[in-house]
């Protein structure tokens, strides 16, 4: 053993001397990839494929029912839109939600950290596609759904299982995707 070691060192010496440099180059490449690739800052909910956590939200508007997680498991897929009157991208997605509602998609709202007056003004101004709106004043239901911001939209199937989470506003080009996910959820 002790006689063999020097021979292997001499034999391997030719290429082994480049090994540290090669390792260093690999490390630099790794860092460069990490630096140059635009990072995805979205924190996705890890509840996809799992049932909606139980919650009961009081009505956000006097004339509209609040949202109970049991309302979602009524055999039909639903969209649950997490929004707020103070959220600018929510205004951007309003026409797309209106179009989806017009196409017969049941849309339920969770209004996060909002007031009745501000919410009413927002709906008057930007349209109101919601069947029910629950008031999540302290943001706890938003947290229990694994949502990290507004707007976010969940596709929930008829059994109350979360099938898809759309982070950020629904732009016109996203509507077919949402419809696809709803179709998948209704199977």
């Amino acid at each position: 053993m002790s006689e063999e070691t020097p021979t292997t060192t001499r034999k391997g010496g030719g290429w082994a001397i480049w090994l540290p440099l090669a390792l260093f180059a690999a490390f630099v490449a790794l860092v460069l990839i990490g630096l140059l690739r635009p990072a995805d800052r979205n924190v996705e909910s890890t509840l996809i494929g799992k049932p909606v956590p139980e919650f009961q939200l009081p009505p956000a508007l006097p004339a509209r029912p609040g949202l109970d997680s049991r309302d979602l498991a009524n055999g039909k897929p639903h969209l649950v839109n997490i929004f707020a009157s103070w959220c600018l991208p929510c205004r951007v997605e309003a026409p797309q939600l209106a179009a989806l509602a017009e196409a017969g998609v049941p849309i339920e709202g969770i209004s996060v950290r909002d007031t009745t007056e501000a919410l009413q003004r927002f709906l008057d101004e930007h349209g109101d596609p919601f069947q029910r709106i629950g008031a999540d004043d302290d943001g706890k239901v938003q947290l229990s759904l694994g949502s990290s911001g507004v707007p976010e939209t969940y596709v929930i199937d008829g059994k109350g299982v979360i099938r898809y989470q759309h982070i950020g506003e629904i732009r016109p080009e996203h509507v077919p995707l949402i419809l696809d996910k709803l179709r998948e959820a209704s199977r």
Partner: protein
Amino acid sequence: MSRLIVMLLAAIGLFCAVPSLAQEEQSTAPYAYRQLDDPAKEQQAQDLMETLRCLQCQGQSIADSDAPIAGSMRSLVRERIASGERPEEIRAWLIERYGDYVSYAPQLTSLTWPLFAVPLALVLLAFLLLRRRFRRGGDR
């Protein structure tokens, strides 16, 4: 004339938008900016909050962040601690929803164990190699 009306409407719209935007600044969660009465429990909550990531201003802990969602998370942590839940249960509840990313304290899972095992293995390897070298040095 119609242009004037449009401009007037836009001005009114802008005026209305300002107060509704200011809403984001407030967190309506009860314990977002209020400490627990029991100092021991508050300390427990504080220790946990310092190791949880704010989901909006990533890079800050929820204890440091003024984002509304961080306020909601602080309130959730404090209320659950007050009701007797253990900090690690609350962390697990959040990880279940947001993944490991929400926690600054690294978790030992089937995916992360090499991070903990590799340094140990390297130290062990170094020890074995050096021992052999020292023994050989002693032989001569």
